[in-house]
Protein backbone atom coordinates (compact mmCIF):
# COMPACT_ATOMS: atom_id res chain seq x y z
CA UNK A 1 0.00 0.00 0.00
CA UNK A 2 1.42 3.32 -1.03
CA UNK A 3 1.51 6.19 1.48
CA UNK A 4 -1.78 8.03 1.74
CA UNK A 5 -2.31 10.86 -0.70
CA UNK A 6 -2.07 14.26 1.01
CA UNK A 7 -5.67 15.14 0.24
CA UNK A 8 -6.90 11.86 1.67
CA UNK A 9 -4.94 12.60 4.82
CA UNK A 10 -6.51 16.05 5.00
CA UNK A 11 -9.96 14.51 4.69
CA UNK A 12 -9.26 11.99 7.46
CA UNK A 13 -8.06 14.84 9.66
CA UNK A 14 -11.28 16.74 8.95
CA UNK A 15 -13.41 13.71 9.82
CA UNK A 16 -11.48 13.16 13.04
CA UNK A 17 -11.91 16.81 13.93
CA UNK A 18 -15.64 16.64 13.30
CA UNK A 19 -15.90 13.45 15.35
CA UNK A 20 -14.58 15.37 18.33
CA UNK A 21 -17.15 18.17 18.05
CA UNK A 22 -20.09 16.74 20.07
CA UNK A 23 -18.16 15.80 23.24
CA UNK A 24 -16.19 19.05 23.13
CA UNK A 25 -19.16 21.37 22.69
CA UNK A 26 -21.12 19.42 25.32
CA UNK A 27 -18.23 19.80 27.74
CA UNK A 28 -18.16 23.50 26.92
CA UNK A 29 -21.84 23.66 27.82
CA UNK A 30 -23.12 24.52 24.37
CA UNK A 31 -24.60 21.27 23.02
CA UNK A 32 -26.67 23.15 20.45
CA UNK A 33 -23.49 23.51 18.44
CA UNK A 34 -23.78 19.79 17.69
CA UNK A 35 -26.81 20.61 15.57
CA UNK A 36 -24.90 23.34 13.78
CA UNK A 37 -22.00 20.99 13.10
CA UNK A 38 -24.46 18.34 11.94
CA UNK A 39 -25.78 20.80 9.38
CA UNK A 40 -22.23 21.27 8.13
CA UNK A 41 -21.89 17.51 7.67
CA UNK A 42 -25.20 17.24 5.83
CA UNK A 43 -24.14 19.87 3.34
CA UNK A 44 -20.75 18.24 3.00
CA UNK A 45 -22.58 15.16 1.68
CA UNK A 46 -24.60 17.29 -0.73
CA UNK A 47 -21.49 19.15 -1.93
CA UNK A 48 -19.58 15.87 -2.39
CA UNK A 49 -22.35 14.49 -4.58
CA UNK A 50 -22.45 17.66 -6.67
CA UNK A 51 -18.68 17.54 -7.08
CA UNK A 52 -18.95 14.17 -8.81
CA UNK A 53 -20.86 15.67 -11.72
CA UNK A 54 -19.68 19.28 -11.58
CA UNK A 55 -16.06 18.75 -10.63
CA UNK A 56 -15.25 15.39 -12.19
CA UNK A 57 -17.80 15.39 -14.99
CA UNK A 58 -17.88 19.11 -15.89
CA UNK A 59 -21.67 18.98 -15.78
CA UNK A 60 -22.62 22.24 -14.11
CA UNK A 61 -25.99 21.41 -12.60
CA UNK A 62 -27.91 24.34 -11.19
CA UNK A 63 -30.65 22.06 -9.94
CA UNK A 64 -28.86 19.74 -7.58
CA UNK A 65 -30.86 20.86 -4.53
CA UNK A 66 -33.87 19.10 -6.05
CA UNK A 67 -32.41 15.85 -4.75
CA UNK A 68 -31.99 17.35 -1.30
CA UNK A 69 -35.74 17.91 -1.54
CA UNK A 70 -36.51 14.40 -2.76
CA UNK A 71 -34.58 13.00 0.19
CA UNK A 72 -36.41 15.26 2.63
CA UNK A 73 -39.83 14.42 1.21
CA UNK A 74 -38.95 10.73 1.33
CA UNK A 75 -38.84 11.18 5.12
CA UNK A 76 -42.18 13.00 5.20
CA UNK A 77 -43.80 10.45 2.91
CA UNK A 78 -42.11 7.57 4.70
CA UNK A 79 -43.45 8.76 8.05
CA UNK A 80 -46.91 8.88 6.52
CA UNK A 81 -46.63 5.36 5.12
CA UNK A 82 -45.19 3.98 8.31
CA UNK A 83 -41.60 3.83 7.08
CA UNK A 84 -39.66 5.17 10.02
CA UNK A 85 -36.36 3.43 9.39
CA UNK A 86 -33.64 5.69 8.06
CA UNK A 87 -32.35 3.11 5.59
CA UNK A 88 -35.84 2.55 4.17
CA UNK A 89 -36.27 6.30 3.80
CA UNK A 90 -32.89 6.58 2.12
CA UNK A 91 -33.92 3.86 -0.32
CA UNK A 92 -37.17 5.70 -1.02
CA UNK A 93 -35.34 9.00 -1.49
CA UNK A 94 -32.81 7.34 -3.79
CA UNK A 95 -35.53 5.71 -5.85
CA UNK A 96 -37.35 9.01 -6.33
CA UNK A 97 -34.10 10.80 -7.13
CA UNK A 98 -32.88 8.12 -9.50
CA UNK A 99 -36.13 8.21 -11.43
CA UNK A 100 -36.15 11.98 -11.72
CA UNK A 101 -32.42 12.16 -12.52
CA UNK A 102 -32.63 9.44 -15.15
CA UNK A 103 -35.35 11.21 -17.10
CA UNK A 104 -34.23 14.82 -16.65
CA UNK A 105 -30.55 13.91 -16.97
CA UNK A 106 -31.13 12.09 -20.26
CA UNK A 107 -32.79 15.23 -21.61
CA UNK A 108 -30.40 17.75 -20.03
CA UNK A 109 -27.29 15.94 -21.29
CA UNK A 110 -28.35 16.66 -24.84
CA UNK A 111 -27.41 20.26 -24.14
CA UNK A 112 -24.08 21.83 -23.24
CA UNK A 113 -22.65 24.78 -21.38
CA UNK A 114 -25.06 27.47 -20.31
CA UNK A 115 -28.01 25.52 -21.70
CA UNK A 116 -27.22 22.61 -19.42
CA UNK A 117 -27.15 25.00 -16.46
CA UNK A 118 -30.52 26.45 -17.44
CA UNK A 119 -32.25 23.18 -18.19
CA UNK A 120 -31.17 21.57 -14.91
CA UNK A 121 -32.42 24.71 -13.14
CA UNK A 122 -35.75 24.46 -14.96
CA UNK A 123 -36.25 20.81 -14.05
CA UNK A 124 -35.40 21.47 -10.42
CA UNK A 125 -37.90 24.33 -10.31
CA UNK A 126 -40.54 21.99 -11.72
CA UNK A 127 -39.88 19.62 -8.85
CA UNK A 128 -39.97 22.55 -6.44
CA UNK A 129 -43.36 23.73 -7.65
CA UNK A 130 -44.66 20.17 -7.67
CA UNK A 131 -44.11 20.00 -3.91
CA UNK A 132 -45.40 23.55 -3.42
CA UNK A 133 -48.63 22.33 -4.99
CA UNK A 134 -48.98 19.32 -2.64
CA UNK A 135 -51.32 20.74 0.00
CA UNK A 136 -51.40 17.39 1.77
CA UNK A 137 -47.67 17.87 2.42
CA UNK A 138 -48.12 21.43 3.63
CA UNK A 139 -47.62 23.06 0.26
CA UNK A 140 -45.45 26.14 0.40
CA UNK A 141 -45.19 25.99 4.21
CA UNK A 142 -43.94 22.45 4.36
CA UNK A 143 -44.69 19.95 7.05
CA UNK A 144 -43.29 19.30 10.52
CA UNK A 145 -42.20 15.76 11.31
CA UNK A 146 -43.71 13.98 14.31
CA UNK A 147 -40.45 12.31 15.16
CA UNK A 148 -37.01 11.57 13.82
CA UNK A 149 -36.33 8.31 12.06
CA UNK A 150 -34.74 5.31 13.67
CA UNK A 151 -31.85 3.29 12.39
CA UNK A 152 -32.27 -0.49 12.71
CA UNK A 153 -34.45 0.04 15.74
CA UNK A 154 -32.21 2.64 17.37
CA UNK A 155 -33.89 6.02 17.75
CA UNK A 156 -32.13 9.07 16.35
CA UNK A 157 -34.00 11.48 18.61
CA UNK A 158 -30.77 12.36 20.38
CA UNK A 159 -28.69 14.98 18.58
CA UNK A 160 -25.54 12.99 19.30
CA UNK A 161 -26.90 9.81 17.66
CA UNK A 162 -28.02 11.64 14.54
CA UNK A 163 -24.68 13.44 14.40
CA UNK A 164 -22.63 10.28 14.30
CA UNK A 165 -24.95 8.65 11.81
CA UNK A 166 -24.47 11.69 9.57
CA UNK A 167 -20.71 11.57 10.02
CA UNK A 168 -20.76 7.86 9.20
CA UNK A 169 -22.78 8.53 6.05
CA UNK A 170 -20.39 11.28 5.00
CA UNK A 171 -17.34 9.08 5.49
CA UNK A 172 -18.94 6.17 3.65
CA UNK A 173 -19.87 8.39 0.71
CA UNK A 174 -16.44 9.98 0.68
CA UNK A 175 -14.82 6.54 0.61
CA UNK A 176 -17.15 5.36 -2.14
CA UNK A 177 -16.49 8.40 -4.30
CA UNK A 178 -12.78 8.14 -3.61
CA UNK A 179 -12.84 4.66 -5.12
CA UNK A 180 -15.19 5.65 -7.91
CA UNK A 181 -13.15 8.62 -9.09
CA UNK A 182 -10.06 6.42 -9.30
CA UNK A 183 -11.87 3.59 -11.07
CA UNK A 184 -12.28 2.91 -14.77
CA UNK A 185 -15.60 4.70 -14.67
CA UNK A 186 -14.08 7.71 -12.92
CA UNK A 187 -11.33 7.87 -15.50
CA UNK A 188 -13.80 7.93 -18.36
CA UNK A 189 -15.73 10.68 -16.59
CA UNK A 190 -12.59 12.77 -16.12
CA UNK A 191 -11.48 12.12 -19.69
CA UNK A 192 -14.84 13.34 -20.97
CA UNK A 193 -14.45 16.48 -18.88
CA UNK A 194 -11.04 17.06 -20.45
CA UNK A 195 -12.02 16.43 -24.06
CA UNK A 196 -15.19 14.66 -25.16
CA UNK A 197 -14.17 14.48 -28.83
CA UNK A 198 -10.93 12.76 -27.91
CA UNK A 199 -12.86 10.21 -25.88
CA UNK A 200 -15.05 9.45 -28.89
CA UNK A 201 -11.95 9.04 -31.00
CA UNK A 202 -10.78 6.43 -28.47
CA UNK A 203 -14.02 4.52 -28.89
CA UNK A 204 -16.17 5.84 -26.04
CA UNK A 205 -19.68 7.18 -26.16
CA UNK A 206 -19.69 9.68 -23.28
CA UNK A 207 -23.46 9.90 -22.80
CA UNK A 208 -24.14 6.71 -20.76
CA UNK A 209 -21.21 7.43 -18.45
CA UNK A 210 -22.35 10.98 -17.86
CA UNK A 211 -25.92 9.87 -17.25
CA UNK A 212 -24.90 7.19 -14.76
CA UNK A 213 -22.75 9.74 -12.91
CA UNK A 214 -25.68 12.14 -12.90
CA UNK A 215 -27.95 9.50 -11.36
CA UNK A 216 -25.35 8.45 -8.76
CA UNK A 217 -24.87 12.09 -7.73
CA UNK A 218 -28.63 12.52 -7.39
CA UNK A 219 -28.97 9.42 -5.21
CA UNK A 220 -26.12 10.47 -2.94
CA UNK A 221 -27.55 13.96 -2.57
CA UNK A 222 -30.88 12.50 -1.50
CA UNK A 223 -29.08 10.91 1.46
CA UNK A 224 -28.19 14.44 2.56
CA UNK A 225 -31.87 15.36 2.14
CA UNK A 226 -33.03 12.48 4.36
CA UNK A 227 -30.56 13.56 7.04
CA UNK A 228 -31.44 17.24 6.70
CA UNK A 229 -35.14 16.51 7.27
CA UNK A 230 -34.25 14.51 10.36
CA UNK A 231 -32.03 17.27 11.64
CA UNK A 232 -34.58 20.04 11.30
CA UNK A 233 -37.58 17.74 11.86
CA UNK A 234 -39.18 19.73 9.14
CA UNK A 235 -39.65 19.32 5.39
CA UNK A 236 -40.38 22.15 3.03
CA UNK A 237 -39.96 23.02 -0.65
CA UNK A 238 -37.43 25.66 0.40
CA UNK A 239 -34.85 22.85 0.66
CA UNK A 240 -34.94 22.45 -3.09
CA UNK A 241 -35.16 26.05 -4.28
CA UNK A 242 -32.73 27.31 -6.90
CA UNK A 243 -30.82 29.48 -4.44
CA UNK A 244 -30.04 26.33 -2.49
CA UNK A 245 -28.58 24.81 -5.67
CA UNK A 246 -26.52 27.95 -6.01
CA UNK A 247 -25.26 27.59 -2.45
CA UNK A 248 -24.06 24.08 -3.22
CA UNK A 249 -22.03 25.42 -6.14
CA UNK A 250 -20.63 28.15 -3.88
CA UNK A 251 -19.48 25.46 -1.42
CA UNK A 252 -17.52 23.78 -4.21
CA UNK A 253 -15.98 27.10 -5.20
CA UNK A 254 -14.94 27.62 -1.59
CA UNK A 255 -13.33 24.23 -1.36
CA UNK A 256 -11.96 23.85 -4.86
CA UNK A 257 -13.90 22.21 -7.67
CA UNK A 258 -12.94 18.69 -8.65
CA UNK A 259 -11.44 17.36 -5.44
CA UNK A 260 -13.46 15.39 -2.89
CA UNK A 261 -11.65 16.79 0.10
CA UNK A 262 -12.18 20.28 -1.27
CA UNK A 263 -15.92 19.67 -1.52
CA UNK A 264 -16.09 18.54 2.12
CA UNK A 265 -13.92 21.40 3.35
CA UNK A 266 -15.84 23.91 1.27
CA UNK A 267 -19.18 22.83 2.70
CA UNK A 268 -17.89 22.87 6.27
CA UNK A 269 -16.42 26.34 5.83
CA UNK A 270 -19.39 27.78 3.94
CA UNK A 271 -22.01 26.57 6.43
CA UNK A 272 -19.75 27.50 9.35
CA UNK A 273 -19.18 30.96 7.92
CA UNK A 274 -22.91 31.40 7.43
CA UNK A 275 -23.54 30.58 11.09
CA UNK A 276 -20.75 32.80 12.36
CA UNK A 277 -21.65 35.79 10.21
CA UNK A 278 -25.30 35.46 11.20
CA UNK A 279 -24.28 36.08 14.82
CA UNK A 280 -22.88 39.47 13.91
CA UNK A 281 -25.46 40.77 11.54
CA UNK A 282 -28.77 40.06 9.87
CA UNK A 283 -27.06 41.12 6.69
CA UNK A 284 -24.63 38.21 6.87
CA UNK A 285 -25.03 37.46 3.19
CA UNK A 286 -23.15 40.65 2.48
CA UNK A 287 -20.13 39.40 4.38
CA UNK A 288 -20.51 35.98 2.81
CA UNK A 289 -20.48 37.53 -0.64
CA UNK A 290 -17.36 39.47 0.21
CA UNK A 291 -15.52 36.32 1.29
CA UNK A 292 -16.64 34.59 -1.90
CA UNK A 293 -15.29 37.42 -4.03
CA UNK A 294 -11.97 37.23 -2.18
CA UNK A 295 -11.75 33.47 -2.71
CA UNK A 296 -12.46 33.72 -6.43
CA UNK A 297 -9.98 36.58 -6.86
CA UNK A 298 -7.11 35.28 -4.77
CA UNK A 299 -7.50 31.52 -4.68
CA UNK A 300 -9.46 30.35 -7.71
CA UNK A 301 -8.99 26.73 -6.67
CA UNK A 302 -10.47 27.47 -3.27
CA UNK A 303 -9.09 25.85 -0.16
CA UNK A 304 -7.51 23.09 -2.23
CA UNK A 305 -5.51 25.63 -4.19
CA UNK A 306 -4.54 27.38 -0.97
CA UNK A 307 -3.39 24.11 0.57
CA UNK A 308 -1.38 23.33 -2.54
CA UNK A 309 0.35 26.69 -2.36
CA UNK A 310 1.16 26.05 1.27
CA UNK A 311 2.81 22.81 0.26
CA UNK A 312 0.13 20.38 1.39
CA UNK A 313 -2.26 18.75 -1.02
CA UNK A 314 -0.56 18.23 -4.33
CA UNK A 315 -1.53 15.84 -7.06
CA UNK A 316 -3.27 12.53 -6.85
CA UNK A 317 -6.67 11.26 -5.98
CA UNK A 318 -9.13 12.53 -3.41
Amino acid at each position, binding site marked *: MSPLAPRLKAALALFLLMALVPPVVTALGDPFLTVVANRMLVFAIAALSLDLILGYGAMVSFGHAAYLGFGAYAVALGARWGLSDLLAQILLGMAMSAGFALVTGAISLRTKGVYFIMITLAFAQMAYFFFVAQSSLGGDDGVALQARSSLLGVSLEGDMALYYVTLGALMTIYAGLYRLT*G*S*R*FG*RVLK*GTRENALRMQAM*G*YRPFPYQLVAYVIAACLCSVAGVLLANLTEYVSPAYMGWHRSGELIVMLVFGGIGTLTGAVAGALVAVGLEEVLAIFSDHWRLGFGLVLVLVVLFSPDGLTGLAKRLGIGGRGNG
Partner: protein
Amino acid sequence: MADLLEIRELRKNFGALAVTDGVSLSVAEGELHAVIGPNGAGKTTLIAQLSGQLAPDSGQVLYAGEDITHLDMAARVRRGLARSFQITALLPGMSVLENVALAVQARSGSSFRFWRDAGGEEITNAQARAALEEVGLADRASVQAQALSHGEQRQLELAVALATKPRLLLLDEPLAGTGGQEAERLIALMQRLKSRLTIVLIEHDMDAVFQLADRISVLVYGAIAATGSPEAVRADPAVRAAYLGEDA
Protein backbone atom coordinates in the same frame (compact mmCIF):
# COMPACT_ATOMS: atom_id res chain seq x y z
CA MET B 1 -4.33 -6.69 -52.43
CA ALA B 2 -7.90 -6.28 -51.27
CA ASP B 3 -9.23 -2.84 -50.54
CA LEU B 4 -9.60 -2.12 -46.83
CA LEU B 5 -11.22 1.25 -47.36
CA GLU B 6 -13.43 2.25 -50.23
CA ILE B 7 -14.96 5.68 -50.61
CA ARG B 8 -17.76 6.04 -53.13
CA GLU B 9 -18.92 9.38 -54.48
CA LEU B 10 -18.67 11.13 -51.14
CA ARG B 11 -20.25 14.60 -51.04
CA LYS B 12 -20.41 17.23 -48.33
CA ASN B 13 -21.58 20.81 -48.71
CA PHE B 14 -21.19 23.62 -46.24
CA GLY B 15 -23.85 25.97 -47.51
CA ALA B 16 -23.18 26.52 -51.20
CA LEU B 17 -19.59 25.35 -50.91
CA ALA B 18 -18.91 21.79 -52.01
CA VAL B 19 -16.14 20.85 -49.57
CA THR B 20 -16.18 17.22 -50.61
CA ASP B 21 -17.26 17.05 -54.23
CA GLY B 22 -17.79 13.46 -55.25
CA VAL B 23 -14.66 11.83 -53.87
CA SER B 24 -14.10 8.19 -54.78
CA LEU B 25 -11.00 6.52 -53.51
CA SER B 26 -9.81 3.08 -52.50
CA VAL B 27 -7.07 2.19 -50.07
CA ALA B 28 -5.57 -1.29 -50.23
CA GLU B 29 -4.74 -3.27 -47.12
CA GLY B 30 -1.17 -2.50 -46.08
CA GLU B 31 -0.92 0.60 -48.22
CA LEU B 32 0.18 4.03 -47.08
CA HIS B 33 -2.03 6.33 -49.04
CA ALA B 34 -1.21 10.02 -48.83
CA VAL B 35 -3.79 12.70 -49.55
CA ILE B 36 -2.26 16.01 -50.47
CA GLY B 37 -3.72 19.24 -51.71
CA PRO B 38 -3.59 22.98 -51.22
CA ASN B 39 -5.05 24.63 -48.13
CA GLY B 40 -8.82 24.52 -48.18
CA ALA B 41 -8.96 21.53 -50.51
CA GLY B 42 -11.12 19.67 -47.98
CA LYS B 43 -8.60 17.21 -46.59
CA THR B 44 -9.57 17.52 -42.94
CA THR B 45 -13.26 17.44 -43.85
CA LEU B 46 -12.60 14.21 -45.72
CA ILE B 47 -10.88 12.68 -42.66
CA ALA B 48 -13.77 13.84 -40.49
CA GLN B 49 -16.19 11.92 -42.69
CA LEU B 50 -14.01 8.82 -42.73
CA SER B 51 -13.68 8.84 -38.95
CA GLY B 52 -17.38 9.48 -38.32
CA GLN B 53 -17.03 12.96 -36.87
CA LEU B 54 -19.04 14.41 -39.76
CA ALA B 55 -21.84 12.78 -41.72
CA PRO B 56 -21.55 13.09 -45.50
CA ASP B 57 -24.51 14.46 -47.47
CA SER B 58 -24.32 11.52 -49.84
CA GLY B 59 -22.01 8.72 -50.87
CA GLN B 60 -20.67 5.71 -49.05
CA VAL B 61 -17.73 4.71 -46.92
CA LEU B 62 -16.91 1.00 -46.94
CA TYR B 63 -14.45 -0.46 -44.47
CA ALA B 64 -13.42 -4.11 -44.71
CA GLY B 65 -16.42 -4.66 -46.93
CA GLU B 66 -18.89 -3.16 -44.49
CA ASP B 67 -20.86 0.02 -45.10
CA ILE B 68 -19.85 2.25 -42.18
CA THR B 69 -21.25 5.50 -43.57
CA HIS B 70 -23.73 5.86 -40.75
CA LEU B 71 -21.68 4.53 -37.84
CA ASP B 72 -20.52 6.98 -35.20
CA MET B 73 -16.91 7.55 -34.27
CA ALA B 74 -16.88 5.14 -31.34
CA ALA B 75 -18.26 2.29 -33.45
CA ARG B 76 -15.65 2.87 -36.15
CA VAL B 77 -12.82 2.97 -33.62
CA ARG B 78 -13.98 -0.38 -32.26
CA ARG B 79 -13.76 -1.80 -35.76
CA GLY B 80 -10.13 -0.69 -35.96
CA LEU B 81 -10.39 2.67 -37.68
CA ALA B 82 -8.48 5.21 -35.60
CA ARG B 83 -7.50 8.78 -36.28
CA SER B 84 -5.16 11.45 -35.05
CA PHE B 85 -6.10 15.11 -35.00
CA GLN B 86 -4.50 17.94 -36.92
CA ILE B 87 -4.97 20.23 -33.94
CA THR B 88 -3.68 18.24 -31.01
CA ALA B 89 -6.61 16.88 -29.03
CA LEU B 90 -5.43 15.29 -25.81
CA LEU B 91 -6.67 15.08 -22.24
CA PRO B 92 -4.52 17.96 -21.00
CA GLY B 93 -5.03 17.55 -17.25
CA MET B 94 -4.27 13.82 -17.21
CA SER B 95 -0.92 12.09 -17.31
CA VAL B 96 0.65 10.83 -20.52
CA LEU B 97 0.16 7.26 -19.33
CA GLU B 98 -3.49 7.88 -18.47
CA ASN B 99 -4.10 9.37 -21.93
CA VAL B 100 -2.92 6.15 -23.54
CA ALA B 101 -4.36 3.84 -20.87
CA LEU B 102 -7.84 5.25 -21.54
CA ALA B 103 -7.48 4.22 -25.17
CA VAL B 104 -6.46 0.71 -24.07
CA GLN B 105 -9.33 0.59 -21.59
CA ALA B 106 -11.85 1.49 -24.32
CA ARG B 107 -11.21 -1.82 -26.09
CA SER B 108 -10.52 -4.09 -23.14
CA GLY B 109 -13.47 -4.84 -20.94
CA SER B 110 -16.25 -2.72 -19.53
CA SER B 111 -15.64 0.80 -18.27
CA PHE B 112 -18.67 0.53 -16.00
CA ARG B 113 -16.42 -0.53 -13.16
CA PHE B 114 -16.75 1.69 -10.18
CA TRP B 115 -14.48 0.35 -7.48
CA ARG B 116 -11.12 -1.09 -8.54
CA ASP B 117 -8.30 1.38 -8.97
CA ALA B 118 -7.83 1.86 -12.71
CA GLY B 119 -4.30 3.17 -12.23
CA GLY B 120 -3.32 -0.22 -10.80
CA GLU B 121 -4.39 -2.29 -13.80
CA GLU B 122 -1.09 -3.82 -14.80
CA ILE B 123 -2.24 -5.29 -18.11
CA THR B 124 -3.74 -1.98 -19.23
CA ASN B 125 -0.68 -0.05 -18.13
CA ALA B 126 1.69 -2.47 -19.84
CA GLN B 127 -0.11 -2.06 -23.15
CA ALA B 128 -0.16 1.71 -22.69
CA ARG B 129 3.56 1.71 -21.97
CA ALA B 130 4.21 -0.37 -25.07
CA ALA B 131 2.45 2.25 -27.19
CA LEU B 132 4.49 5.00 -25.53
CA GLU B 133 7.64 2.98 -26.12
CA GLU B 134 6.72 2.72 -29.77
CA VAL B 135 6.54 6.51 -30.22
CA GLY B 136 9.49 7.18 -27.93
CA LEU B 137 7.63 8.78 -25.04
CA ALA B 138 8.10 6.07 -22.42
CA ASP B 139 10.21 8.25 -20.14
CA ARG B 140 7.50 10.93 -20.05
CA ALA B 141 4.72 8.61 -18.86
CA SER B 142 3.98 10.34 -15.57
CA VAL B 143 4.04 13.91 -16.92
CA GLN B 144 0.75 15.76 -17.45
CA ALA B 145 -0.13 15.92 -21.14
CA GLN B 146 -0.35 19.70 -21.04
CA ALA B 147 3.26 19.91 -19.88
CA LEU B 148 4.60 18.18 -23.02
CA SER B 149 6.32 20.10 -25.78
CA HIS B 150 4.43 20.46 -29.04
CA GLY B 151 6.45 17.71 -30.70
CA GLU B 152 5.87 15.38 -27.79
CA GLN B 153 2.14 16.05 -27.94
CA ARG B 154 2.22 14.99 -31.60
CA GLN B 155 3.95 11.78 -30.50
CA LEU B 156 1.33 11.23 -27.83
CA GLU B 157 -1.44 11.75 -30.41
CA LEU B 158 0.07 8.83 -32.32
CA ALA B 159 0.50 6.70 -29.20
CA VAL B 160 -3.18 7.17 -28.32
CA ALA B 161 -4.26 6.23 -31.83
CA LEU B 162 -1.99 3.16 -31.76
CA ALA B 163 -3.30 2.09 -28.38
CA THR B 164 -6.76 1.59 -29.89
CA LYS B 165 -5.11 -1.27 -31.89
CA PRO B 166 -6.13 0.08 -35.28
CA ARG B 167 -6.11 -1.73 -38.58
CA LEU B 168 -6.51 1.53 -40.47
CA LEU B 169 -4.93 4.72 -39.20
CA LEU B 170 -6.09 8.13 -40.38
CA LEU B 171 -3.34 10.65 -39.73
CA ASP B 172 -4.26 14.30 -40.10
CA GLU B 173 -1.03 16.24 -40.52
CA PRO B 174 0.98 14.42 -37.89
CA LEU B 175 4.01 16.59 -38.66
CA ALA B 176 2.16 19.91 -38.30
CA GLY B 177 4.24 22.34 -36.27
CA THR B 178 7.15 19.98 -35.77
CA GLY B 179 10.58 20.50 -37.16
CA GLY B 180 14.03 19.00 -37.49
CA GLN B 181 14.61 16.05 -35.21
CA GLU B 182 11.01 15.79 -34.04
CA ALA B 183 9.78 15.48 -37.60
CA GLU B 184 12.45 12.95 -38.46
CA ARG B 185 11.53 10.83 -35.48
CA LEU B 186 7.86 10.88 -36.48
CA ILE B 187 8.70 10.02 -40.10
CA ALA B 188 10.82 7.09 -38.94
CA LEU B 189 7.90 5.96 -36.77
CA MET B 190 5.46 6.10 -39.69
CA GLN B 191 7.99 4.16 -41.77
CA ARG B 192 7.88 1.42 -39.14
CA LEU B 193 4.11 1.50 -38.79
CA LYS B 194 3.47 1.23 -42.49
CA SER B 195 4.75 -2.31 -42.53
CA ARG B 196 1.95 -3.50 -40.26
CA LEU B 197 -0.88 -1.00 -40.69
CA THR B 198 -2.86 0.59 -43.42
CA ILE B 199 -2.46 4.34 -43.24
CA VAL B 200 -4.22 7.29 -44.81
CA LEU B 201 -1.89 10.23 -44.39
CA ILE B 202 -2.71 13.88 -44.84
CA GLU B 203 0.43 15.91 -44.84
CA HIS B 204 1.86 19.17 -46.10
CA ASP B 205 5.47 18.13 -45.80
CA MET B 206 6.12 16.98 -49.38
CA ASP B 207 9.49 15.39 -48.60
CA ALA B 208 7.81 13.18 -46.02
CA VAL B 209 4.91 12.34 -48.32
CA PHE B 210 7.09 11.31 -51.24
CA GLN B 211 9.33 9.35 -48.91
CA LEU B 212 6.52 7.41 -47.23
CA ALA B 213 3.60 7.04 -49.63
CA ASP B 214 2.84 4.00 -51.73
CA ARG B 215 0.21 5.99 -53.55
CA ILE B 216 -0.80 9.62 -53.50
CA SER B 217 -4.15 11.25 -54.18
CA VAL B 218 -4.30 14.93 -54.93
CA LEU B 219 -7.35 16.75 -53.63
CA VAL B 220 -8.21 20.07 -55.27
CA TYR B 221 -11.41 21.96 -54.46
CA GLY B 222 -12.92 18.90 -52.84
CA ALA B 223 -12.35 16.56 -55.78
CA ILE B 224 -9.61 14.07 -56.60
CA ALA B 225 -7.41 15.58 -59.32
CA ALA B 226 -5.13 12.58 -59.61
CA THR B 227 -4.24 9.29 -57.92
CA GLY B 228 -1.14 7.25 -58.50
CA SER B 229 2.37 6.33 -57.47
CA PRO B 230 4.57 9.16 -56.20
CA GLU B 231 6.44 9.21 -59.52
CA ALA B 232 3.26 9.37 -61.57
CA VAL B 233 1.77 12.10 -59.40
CA ARG B 234 4.96 14.11 -59.49
CA ALA B 235 4.94 13.95 -63.28
CA ASP B 236 1.23 14.69 -63.71
CA PRO B 237 0.95 18.09 -65.42
CA ALA B 238 -2.50 18.79 -63.97
CA VAL B 239 -1.14 18.21 -60.48
CA ARG B 240 1.85 20.43 -61.09
CA ALA B 241 -0.42 23.21 -62.24
CA ALA B 242 -2.89 22.84 -59.42
CA TYR B 243 -0.61 22.22 -56.54
CA LEU B 244 3.04 21.47 -56.78
CA GLY B 245 3.60 24.46 -58.99
CA GLU B 246 2.86 26.83 -56.15
CA ASP B 247 4.64 24.86 -53.53
CA ALA B 248 7.64 23.05 -54.91
